[in-house]
């Protein structure tokens, strides 16, 4: 078992890398040598060169610039999706856990119904109905994944709301809201944060996956999954169309997966 100090050091390093990658994604356009949307029919499917660092695609756009711009779209969508499902799931979970009875049963049966479908299939169905696009993809995945956080929150709340310290708090005049913010939330937040950190990589992949299927981000907006989709037909002749976005996804997802694991180790009471 790694010592706590080493986990802390490792956490700080990996967190810095993660933050750096987010900052980089935000300021990426500064580094981009070319306009990611600019087509150039003279330079179609060109090999990586000095002018086009990662080559060009089937309509002559700079792959390097598109990857840089794509980072912003990919990370932005992931964090938007995560905050949506986290906040929504947390509120629903607390309501269900605190209220109990018929409210709890109703909410949980709805969650069970949503969970009974395979998530990607369900997302494809929703996007199919609403039409493809960035907004609808986020909406579709939110509709499915709030259940994960709602269920986790509910179980954690139910484990805590009958503790003696909650009774003791009631006896000194703490209202419902104060109970939630001062007693329940601080004691359930760590497992939720761990779950959140562990989910970042998976969400990014799911979003890229839906874009790859042509349901998420639409051309010409640069997004890594979408770039893979467009490059698919040129796998033999222009492999750089697939390799670079693939490597980008691999690196970023790896960073956030390692971050998630480290957060889990850090907050795991067994390591204290």
């Amino acid at each position: 078992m790694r010592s706590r100090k080493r986990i802390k050091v490792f956490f700080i390093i990996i967190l810095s890398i993660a933050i750096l990658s987010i900052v980089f994604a935000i300021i990426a356009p500064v580094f981009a040598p070319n306009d990611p949307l600019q087509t150039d029919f003279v330079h179609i499917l060109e090999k990586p060169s000095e002018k086009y660092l990662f080559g060009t695609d089937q309509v002559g756009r700079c792959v390097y610039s598109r990857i840089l711009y794509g980072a912003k779209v990919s990370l932005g969508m992931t964090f938007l999706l995560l905050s949506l499902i986290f906040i929504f799931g947390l509120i629903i979970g607390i309501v269900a856990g605190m209220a109990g009875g018929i409210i709890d049963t109703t909410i949980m049966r709805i969650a069970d119904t949503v969970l009974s479908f395979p998530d990607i299939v369900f997302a494809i169905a929703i996007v199919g109905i609403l039409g493809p696009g960035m907004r609808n993809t986020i909406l579709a995945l939110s509709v499915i994944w709030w259940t994960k956080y709602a269920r986790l929150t509910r179980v954690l709340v139910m484990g805590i709301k009958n503790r003696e310290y909650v009774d003791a708090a009631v006896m000194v005049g703490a209202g419902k809201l104060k109970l939630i913010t001062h007693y329940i939330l601080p004691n359930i937040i760590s497992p939720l944060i761990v779950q959140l950190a562990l989910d970042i990589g998976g969400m990014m992949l799911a979003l890229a996956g839906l874009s790859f299927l042509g349901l998420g981000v639409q051309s010409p907006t640069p997004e890594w999954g979408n770039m893979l989709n467009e490059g698919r037909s040129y796998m033999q002749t222009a492999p750089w169309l697939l390799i670079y976005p693939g490597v980008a996804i691999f690196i970023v997802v790896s960073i956030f997966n390692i971050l998630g694991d480290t957060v889990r180790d850090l907050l795991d009471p067994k390591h204290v």
Partner: protein
Amino acid sequence: MKQNTILELKDVNKHFRDNDGDIFKAVEDVSITLAKGECIGIVGESGCGKSTLARIIAHLTEVSQGRIIFKGKDIVKLQGDALKAHYKNVQMIFQSPLDTFSPRMTIGGYLIEPFVNFKLMNKKKAYEYAQELLDMVGLDKDYIKKYPNELSGGQLQRVVIARAIGIKPDIIICDECTSALDVSIQKQIINLLLALKEKTDFSNVFITHDLALAESICDRIYVMYQGEIVEMIEGQNIVEEAKHPYTKILLSSVFSVKNFENIGNQRIG
């Protein structure tokens, strides 16, 4: 009804329904009275309904039937703000000191809670008062910044008592408040409670399975068995006055060297 009665329970019932729909009677037709400044004991074995009764008196559990009269008013139906205000009058000290604290709240945060929640004082003043309270129960003022896991069980129970006393309630309920502590600390806590009781004159409901303890500090003892009060003993002569067979069984199960000798003799005989 005595003139200075502060709390009266009349035919209080509490029924729980289990998953099969069967009714479990946790507390049945319990009637007790508590006068101002008095200390009553409720003794009985585990599962006899002592703690449920404590929660009923504290208004944490609603009664199924019966009336609870506090200072001449029926408080059974209290809700919302009125109930919140009522909690100022009754405080409870729980069995396990560590469970009474939220692990993520400092001792100071714990101590100021009632004064901030009941809007009795602002945060800064409450912290000053919290330090006074800590001083009163014989703890260092620096404890205000500590977390519950940094204190021992006895110290935590002192903090709990400090907060309960600080609100200046009419009634303090001690639900097995010494059972989780070792014997020497038990004595310290009881002595602290008694010393504070002389100063502030609160009424005390003392719930315990320890007959000797109940006998030594209570003015009156109610013996509870399977949800019912089977006997009430005035004064401090539980051994002589006990009539109900269950009370006698309870008394004979108290461990002492003498009892062991008896058991030994019986076996030989």
